[in-house]
Each structure stands twice: as structure tokens, then as C-alpha cells.
């Protein structure tokens, strides 16, 4: 694949939008392969009893997959600091929602929810 930014200049419609970034196809294919492998790994590991580590492994793999999609498919790796701040801010606020609520549930003591 030689469709790098310079190689493709001037084929159709004049200058490319300056603010966008052209990622080589092989990068996309590599990321896709890693994502598929990680999917297979997370399914495989889920059938092995690792105790509490099962959840940890699943979350770590999911976060890794998410990072790959965000950084490469969504071009954040090549984006402005503002984009990084927006993405980071979104996850920071999600963390506030989850952690402050858990601060309640995890300190309620035993038997904090029951049914019947």
C-alpha cells in the first residue's frame, strides 16, 4: 500500500481538508487483526476459572480494544489536544458517576440490598 498522504495528492477535487489525517490502510488492517485476536482471547479466557481475575482480564482486554478503536479508527492519535481533552473529560465524568455512587454502596455494610 503506497497511498500515503503525499502519494495521493492531487488526484481528485484539489487540496485535501487540512484538518483530517490520512491513515495508511495497513494500519487499519493491523488494528483490525489485533481486535479480532483480542476478541478470541477474551472469549477463550472466560472459560478458564481464574477466580476474580476473570473479570479483571475481561475489563483490561475491553479497555485495550477501546483504546485501539479510539486511537486509530477514530484518529485520536493524530488529533488535536482539544480532542484528547474532550475524550478524557468524557471518561473522567463517567468515572465520577461510577466512583462516587460506589462510594455509597461499598460503605453501606453487609446486606445492603435484599429482595423479597
Amino acid at each position, binding site marked *: 500500500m503506497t*497511498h500515503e498522504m503525499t502519494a*495521493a495528492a492531487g*488526484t*481528485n*477535487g*484539489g*487540496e*485535501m*481538508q*487540512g*484538518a*483530517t489525517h*490520512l*491513515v495508511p*490502510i495497513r494500519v*487499519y*488492517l493491523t*488494528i*483490525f487483526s489485533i*481486535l*479480532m485476536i483480542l*476478541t478470541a482471547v*477474551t*472469549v477463550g479466557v*472466560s*472459560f*478458564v*476459572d*481464574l477466580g476474580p481475575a*476473570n*473479570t479483571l482480564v*475481561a*475489563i483490561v*482486554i*475491553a479497555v485495550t*480494544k*477501546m483504546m485501539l*478503536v*479510539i486511537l*486509530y*479508527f*477514530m484518529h485520536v492519535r493524530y488529533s*488535536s489536544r*482539544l*480532542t484528547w481533552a*474532550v*475524550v478524557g*473529560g*468524557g*471518561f473522567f*465524568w*463517567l468515572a465520577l*458517576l*461510577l466512583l462516587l*455512587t*460506589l462510594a455509597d*454502596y461499598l460503605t453501606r455494610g453487609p446486606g*445492603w*440490598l435484599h*429482595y423479597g
Partner: protein
Amino acid sequence: MAGAHATQHPKLQHHFDNLDQQFEASALGMWLFLVTEILFFGGLFLAYLVYRIAYPEAFAEASHELDVVLGGVNTAVLIGSSLTMAMAVWSAQLGKRSGQMLFLALTIGLGLVFLGIKAVEYSHKFEHGLVPGPNFRFESARNPVPAQLFFSLYFVMTGIHALHMIVGIGIMTVLFVMAFKGRFTRAYHTPVEVSGLYWHFVDIVWIFLFPLLYLIDRHGPVGH
């Protein structure tokens, strides 16, 4: 507009100075929208988290009722659609019309496959009485009562995700028509880029739903 900016690009709206500013504004707008989506789904993930901590056994039992094969295939389908989406953006960046149409069509097709498989899964749950409400039946379980919470969250989370897929497919269809008409060039392809961000986001939501709903209790002692 036409008089004042006769020399400008026809896609440049009157209140922007140039196409770059217009693109940056659109991209930032989409990213902010995705932040609202993070927090929108965040509320559901919070509910899942709280109840899973409260009722680990019931959630493990209920999780075993989901079909790992169908869920796994759907994960692969969605990741594949993210690749085709990225390729559609790539084609748009280079102004390749046929590439845009091909990859948008593939993205739409994979999206439809995902929804089809999801529909099969839903129909299985209906047949097994696992839809929450007055007709909920999960007699084989040791914790049938809180298991209903799991299925409520399963249907709401995957249902809203599927709704996002349907909206995404609608957007891709519009883009396909625009691509067919040759609207996207090297100089202007903002709609493809920002819609791509949305599609990838919907993929990311599934990347979390799949392990949380289908996988993490798979190894446990309860099985059928």
C-alpha cells in the same frame, strides 16, 4: 451567501471563514455528542455495576442463559464493520467515489447482520420466558428474583445499543446516496468523517457489553 462568497467552496456555510474551520467545528461537535453518549450509557453501566456487586450469583446464573457463540460472532461482525467504516472514511479522504460506496454498503450490510443475529437472540429469550415482567420464568435458577434485574438490564442495554445501530444504518444509507451522487471530494467529506466517529463509538459500547453480559461469569460453577 452565494453573492458574498462566490469564490468560496460551495459547501462552505456563510458563518465560517474556511473549510478547515468548518470541519474542526463539526468534528468537535461530534466528539461532544459522543461525550453525552458516554454518560448516557454510563447510567446503565452504573446500574449494572451496582446490581452485579449486590447479586453476583444471580448475575452469573442469568449470564449463562446468553449465547456466547452468537454474541462472539456479533462482536466480530461489529469490529469488521468498524474496519469497513474506517475504509469508507479513507476512500472519502482520497475522493474515491467507488470506494466510498463499496465500504459504506459493506458497513450497512454488517450492521444489518448484527441486528439480525440480535433478533434471533431476542426471540430465544422470549421463547424461554426470560423477558422481565409478569411472565418472567426462570425456575431452574437458585436466585430467580434478582436474576430478573439482569435481564432487565440486558434488554435495556442491548436494546438501546441496537437502537443506536439502527440510527447508524440510517445515517450510512444517507451517506451512501450522497456518495453515489459524488458529493464527497478530497476537499470536502466532513459528513463521512464525523458519522464514522459515531459508528466506531457504537462499536465501543458493544466491546464492553459483550464481556460484561456474556463472558465474565462463564467459568463459574453454575451451568446447564
